[in-house]
């Protein structure tokens, strides 16, 4: 924590560090995005197939057709680390997905507590997050709970990071007030207030126990993040245009509209270089969303537990995941249409991983989990179909982090990570 603060202060003074060199060499900084959708898949409808000419997308992944050349689909990837540690299938899947470590043993949520290590996005943010207004951006779509099932991002210290599910609040975080005078005034007021608040934290912190101090310091760090955002000014450009202020839709069927708003705001945050690391969490593990707009009238989680020979349920699950693929394509499309210099698009400079906490819902299996890697990673990522034959997902995450330029050599539980997954990097 302390070292990060020092880095931030240094960055504020001199805008130092690797990316300046990258800019000097005319290359665009890389972006790193994790996307989650829940409850496993129907493998037959999800897995792309080889064809004489190459490979063909599947019924679920068909919406990715415009980006097929910029997509890598690793087959038969397992959450191998999820064979360890406590928790039920959903809890382990969600906790392991981006951390690749065992959950803590605790009575907090049945038999488990939070994850025991940082998530890959936050590890990447440790190297990509220093120069931007926001170190990272965690977005959710109807994440209304606060349990281990609804947290996928964990800070470098292993604290869960709550995603923001209100597009109106995200807009406020990214762009603030429209009127420059009002914006300046509010900025000044907020800075005065938060400076004084931090003064209170600084004064109290040394007087309390070590355990209490950790709690106070973690909260104070989030206030510093808010302050840091207040300090930064967005420079509008051809690719960074301030959107109109969204009105947050409400009601049980607002999920698609909320998701579209969050997707667009995420893409814009990257386009404006407000952050280089982001995550998007659709609902939560064991999602209770009823996808009525797709003609499915039963909770997704409930549906995912129907039997394999229930053809109607399999068709509905396929419909739901195809809908998620359409939403993923919307994100890719936004990034593809944003130029990033040198004839490349923001998509070419990005590493985007879309994952799920399960392979199959009705067995809670952590095998053959549906992962899709999209973007060019600045020329570091391959595309196509990749047979991994039971590869460890932590090796996939490591490869993706390296593609984003993070100087990592291992990730998660080291006994499941021998190095970056073969066939991912060029």
């Amino acid at each position, binding site marked *: 924590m302390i070292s990060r603060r020092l880095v931030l202060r240094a960055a504020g003074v001199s805008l130092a560090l690797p990316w300046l060199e990258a800019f000097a060499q005319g290359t665009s900084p890389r972006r790193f995005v994790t996307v989650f959708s829940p409850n496993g898949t129907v493998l037959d409808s999800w897995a792309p197939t080889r064809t004489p000419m190459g490979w063909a997308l599947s019924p679920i992944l068909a919406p990715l057709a415009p980006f097929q050349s910029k997509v890598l689909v690793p087959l038969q990837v397992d959450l191998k680390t999820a064979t360890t540690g406590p928790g039920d299938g959903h809890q382990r899947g969600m906790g392991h997905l981006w951390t690749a470590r065992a959950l803590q043993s605790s009575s907090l949520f049945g038999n488990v507590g939070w994850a025991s290590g940082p998530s890959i996005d936050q590890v990447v943010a440790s190297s990509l997050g220093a120069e931007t207004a926001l170190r990272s951006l965690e977005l959710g779509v109807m994440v209304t709970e*606060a349990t281990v099932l609804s947290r996928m991002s964990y800070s470098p210290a292993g604290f869960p990071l709550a995603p923001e599910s*209100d597009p109106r609040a995200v807009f406020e975080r990214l762009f603030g007030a429209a009127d420059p005078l009002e914006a300046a005034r509010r900025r000044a007021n907020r800075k005065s207030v938060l400076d004084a608040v931090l003064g209170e934290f600084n004064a109290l912190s040394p007087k309390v126990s070590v355990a209490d101090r950790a709690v106070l310091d973690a909260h104070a760090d989030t206030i510093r993040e808010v302050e840091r955002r207040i300090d930064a000014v967005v420079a509008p450009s051809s690719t960074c245009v301030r959107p109109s202020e969204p009105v947050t839709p409400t009601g049980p069927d607002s999920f698609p509209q909320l998701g579209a708003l969050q997707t667009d705001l995420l893409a814009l945050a990257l386009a404006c270089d407000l952050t280089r690391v982001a995550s998007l969490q659709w609902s939560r593990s064991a999602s209770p969303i009823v996808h009525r707009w797709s003609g499915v009238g039963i909770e997704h989680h409930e549906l995912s537990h*129907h039997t394999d020979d229930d053809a109607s349920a399999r068709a509905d699950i396929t419909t739901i995941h195809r809908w998620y693929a359409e939403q993923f394509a919307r994100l890719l499309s936004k990034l593809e249409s944003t130029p990033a210099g040198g004839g490349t698009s923001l998509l070419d400079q990005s590493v985007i991983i879309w994952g799920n906490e399960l392979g199959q819902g009705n067995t809670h299996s952590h095998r053959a989990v549906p992962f899709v890697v999209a973007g060019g990673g600045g020329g570091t990522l391959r595309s196509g179909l990749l047979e991994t034959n039971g590869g460890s997902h932590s090796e996939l995450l490591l490869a993706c982090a390296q593609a984003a330029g993070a100087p990592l050599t291992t990730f998660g539980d080291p006994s499941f990570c021998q190095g970056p997954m073969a066939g991912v990097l060029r």
Partner: protein
Amino acid sequence: MFDLACRQSPAPTLNPEPVTTVEVSCTSQPAPLRLRRLTRLEWQHSVKQALNVDVTLEIPDDEGLGFSTVAEAQAASVSLAEKLLEAAERTTASMNVGELSPCPLSDTCSPRFIAKLATALFRRPARDDELARLNETWRRLRTTESEDMSARLLTQVLLQSPAFLFRVESTDAGVVDDEAFAIRLAFALTGEGPDDRLRALAASGALVSNQNVRAEAQRLLSTAAARRTIGRFHVEWLGVSSLSRVSRGGPDAGFDDLKPSMEREVAELGAFVTLDDHHLSTLFSGKTTFVDPPLGARYGFAGLEGEGFRRVQLDVLQRSGVLTAPGVLAVWAKSRGTSPTLRGRFVRERLLCGKLPTPPPNVSMTLPAQNGGTTRARFQQHVADPACSGCHQLMDPIGFGLERYDETGAFRLVENGRAIDAHGELTRFDGGFRFEGAEPLGQWLAQSSDVRRCVATQWFRFTMGRAETAGDRCTLDAMTRTLELTDGDVREALLTLVTSDTFRLAGAP
């Protein structure tokens, strides 16, 4: 009053689940404490209490052990910091500075204004170093802002300060000091900070006497804030706090509009049983509940008029106790259909405090398709597999007894044209309890010593904001014994808790 000395023989547990044997210690041992942040509701109540402003803090509740109060589940986040900032701005936008200020607001008056507000919000007299910093902030603000605006911005500082946001406790010689003790007592029973009388008692040293603590606790329990807090406990304990997030029975079931009333019913019933009726058995087998007209119509009470909740007598052929409250039945169900498993798990985990094993990995957890038969028949087929039946035997047969209530909580006698068989069983190593329908199950729970132990345990978790440990055995035994000796007076058990050693102990470092 009941003394806290433990007996060597722990109460025998009849739960069939493996129970970890803990050495009974006869003195309470402090568990490690984690700093507690105000919950969403505590924040709102505290703002109302100190500044007389009604404001909504738009954050999700934390959910450790099923409760919003558990410190270990509280995590920092940028989103939280933003919401606290924004809520502080909204609060000060609508606060009445003139009414709160002890003198016409000016630079001369400002130290008194600051001291008054800091003392109100920090739940104790502001310290000298705090006042020095706050007065300095005032001077800085005044270089650009009006007196009124400076007062509002300064209040925003107070609202985001650790002394307001967290329950920082000064501890000495292994116990919390009087100030911190008063704060613990007030939050435990009223969900907000101590009032003037309690603060004065703390300052006078009167709270070292358990007799005084008991008297003060009784006074606090007679307040509206205590009724609200006890209602909230029941809403969280029985799972009804999740009701707002579920969908049940399809879009035409009219379910969504009734959710707030269903939640409120459980709160009203819980508060009534605890504060007015004094018999825990009434919660499980009572013939009375509380409804407003829309919820009453769901129960079949025609012609209720006006607004608000009123006490009604239940139709004993259909309803009995909180097990048959629509909110409880609906939240422990699925979107299209009931779940005997979830309802059984609810009884096992929430009411009996049993631990159920995690489902083994990679076993099929599939439901047979809807086939026009009854849910009971589908579930019986589903657990025929011996790999599943071991655990499901602990849950599903309990839920079978509640099959006369659908996933919206409505009463029914037939499902898909077939008569419902509501025979259920709560399996125990001593042979178990067989019953038909909710009423006998409620009556069994009403007299169960395991339920009384569990209620004591749940209250302990909610109030202390942490899981119980071996060192808390004495206190839990004493609370349970209180329930035994008073025929289930939960209010007395709460008095046992707040006068226990545990309630005074500082955590182990």
